């Protein structure tokens, strides 16, 4: 006999229908992009031939100058990723822990400040960044990595949330007091007690930061920096196939990052429920 369930989690069939629908929405464009990158030449008599010609062309020395801008863009984006993650770990994370431990009354203020970038359109932020970057360029030069300062602001809302959620689930005040009473100095408290318990939030924060940095286009474009996204846009005018290949790779990479974040969360839940 099937029982009516009110307010309970959806049944198995409903879950699969939802998962399937969402999967199709995600998979159709990705499959279409893959199909596009495998096309070789124009259809002859209505029949399209497929192959890996566009993939192999990427590694041909003849195309080195064509794709150089793209590879340089990827290197620049990865450099910006590293610096932005460092900003999150060195600036945001200690600030959040400090506020939690010593200035809990400032928690709302910090949250407000971190959420602000998501409420302001990128184009408006760029207008503000342009004069700032004239000074940044004077101090640090105009290397692409300097874009990390601006991107560091853009990622604040995304980096803040997972750490904040983790902090809310762990009573860091009590844990730090307990470890202090056992003879631990502040560095030991941080390294041996607080950070291990925030690992899930920190990883999630870093992965989301990487995903956001790899997808950032507006600021890089308006500040005339060559990144992965700007290179893709540039390249698609001359070689749309390669642009789409890298777009698919970026999508799959972001997908795996999100899977990893989800996995981190479920690993914790499994341990807790055992």
């Amino acid at each position, binding site marked *: 006999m099937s029982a009516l369930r009110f307010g309970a989690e959806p049944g198995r069939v409903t879950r699969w229908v939802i998962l399937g629908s969402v999967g199709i929405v995600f998979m159709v464009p990705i499959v279409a992009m893959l199909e596009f990158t495998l096309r070789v030449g124009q259809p002859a008599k209505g029949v399209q031939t497929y192959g890996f010609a566009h993939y192999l062309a990427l590694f041909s020395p003849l195309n080195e100058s064509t794709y150089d801008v793209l590879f340089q863009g990827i290197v620049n984006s990865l450099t910006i990723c590293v610096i932005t993650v460092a900003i999150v770990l060195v600036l945001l994370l200690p600030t959040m822990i400090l506020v939690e431990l010593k200035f809990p009354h400032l928690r709302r203020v910090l949250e407000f400040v971190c959420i602000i970038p998501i409420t302001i359109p990128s184009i408006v932020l760029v207008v503000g960044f342009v004069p700032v970057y004239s000074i940044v360029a004077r101090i640090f030069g105009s290397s692409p990595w300097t874009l990390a300062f601006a991107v560091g602001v853009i990622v604040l809302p995304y980096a803040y949330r997972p750490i904040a959620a983790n902090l809310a689930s762990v009573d860091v005040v*009590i*844990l730090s*007091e307990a*470890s*202090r*009473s*056992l*003879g631990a100095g502040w560095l030991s408290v941080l390294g041996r007690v607080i950070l291990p318990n925030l690992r899930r939030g920190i990883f999630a924060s870093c992965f989301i930061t990487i995903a956001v940095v790899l997808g950032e286009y507006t600021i890089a474009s308006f500040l005339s920096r060559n990144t992965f996204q700007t290179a893709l846009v540039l390249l698609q005018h001359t070689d749309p196939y390669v642009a789409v290949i890298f777009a698919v790779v970026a999508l799959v990479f972001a997908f795996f990052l999100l899977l990893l974040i989800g996995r981190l969360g479920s690993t914790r839940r499994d*341990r807790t429920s*055992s």
Partner: protein
Amino acid sequence: MTLIADAPITTMSSGATVELIDVVKDYSGHRALTGVNLSIKPGEFVALLGPSGCGKTTALRALAGLEQVNGGSILIDGRDVVNVPVNKRDIGMVFQSYSLFPHMTARENVEFGLRMRKVDPAERRRRAEETLELVGLSALSGRYSHQLSGGQQQRVALARALVTRPRVLLLDEPLSALDAKVRVQLRDEIRRIQTDLGITTLFVTHDQEEALAVADRVAVMRDGHVEQIGTPEELYTAPISAFVANFVGLSNQIPAEVSGGVVTVHGQTLDLINRPHLDGPVIAFVRPEDIVIDAQGMTSTVLTSSFLGSLRRTQLRLDDGSVISVQHDVADQLQPGDTVRVRLKGRPVLVGPR
């Protein structure tokens, strides 16, 4: 390494003396401690008892070094530790909420304090296992906190606090999150371990039964200061104020008259615990067990009667309309509406202004 640190946990030498002298603590305009004075002898178990907001946890945290005081002195073995950081005070502390490190097993939790003191791994492991055995948890040393019950977690927390052989053990309402049965078991176990180790212990609780059951002396706190300190018997039989009489145990508040150094309660003359400045009308604080059912006593009507296991507590309305509680034998089964005669046993009573 000192003699104490090398000694096995089960033969720890006696603890330190602790003195709080005029300790004052302010929180943004609110004075939480108004001048706490407390002296604890080596190896003594003292309970800080009081209602919520009276400052008992603040006093304990000040002793631990988790709160900076605004005035006064805190002496451990005669040395003022007011400016000594918490990690250098050599105290062990058990918190109200289970404060085990979630990413560590029970044994790793217990080892933490020794790791901070750079004790070598083999010795660390030996002492952790020894202390876990002391609290009866050696079989669960590999479990994480989420795999332990509340009582087991608090046992691990106790072992963690004891393993470093601290000079003073501080317990901040460690039993309040546990169910009644586990609370009594762990309470007795804490007392047994404390007696075995002879460690100076300060135990914060708002549960008077808990305080009276485990402590050598109980300090009753009120509005940021210690109102009275004494053995459980002293507090119960000779409270110095109406607050203590009401907070420690039950007291009937009965209108009475003081005259010539004695008090007259419902026609019976009793000696006084305290002496008011002037003769006249007062309130007498009479314990329920100091009133007995007696055919020669005053008439009253039964309102309710509760069975409490070894005794029965009954509420009575006296002829003048006042309501009192009496404790009596379970064999005296009184029903609401019954008429019963009661009298005071004649023990000295505390009086306060009416």
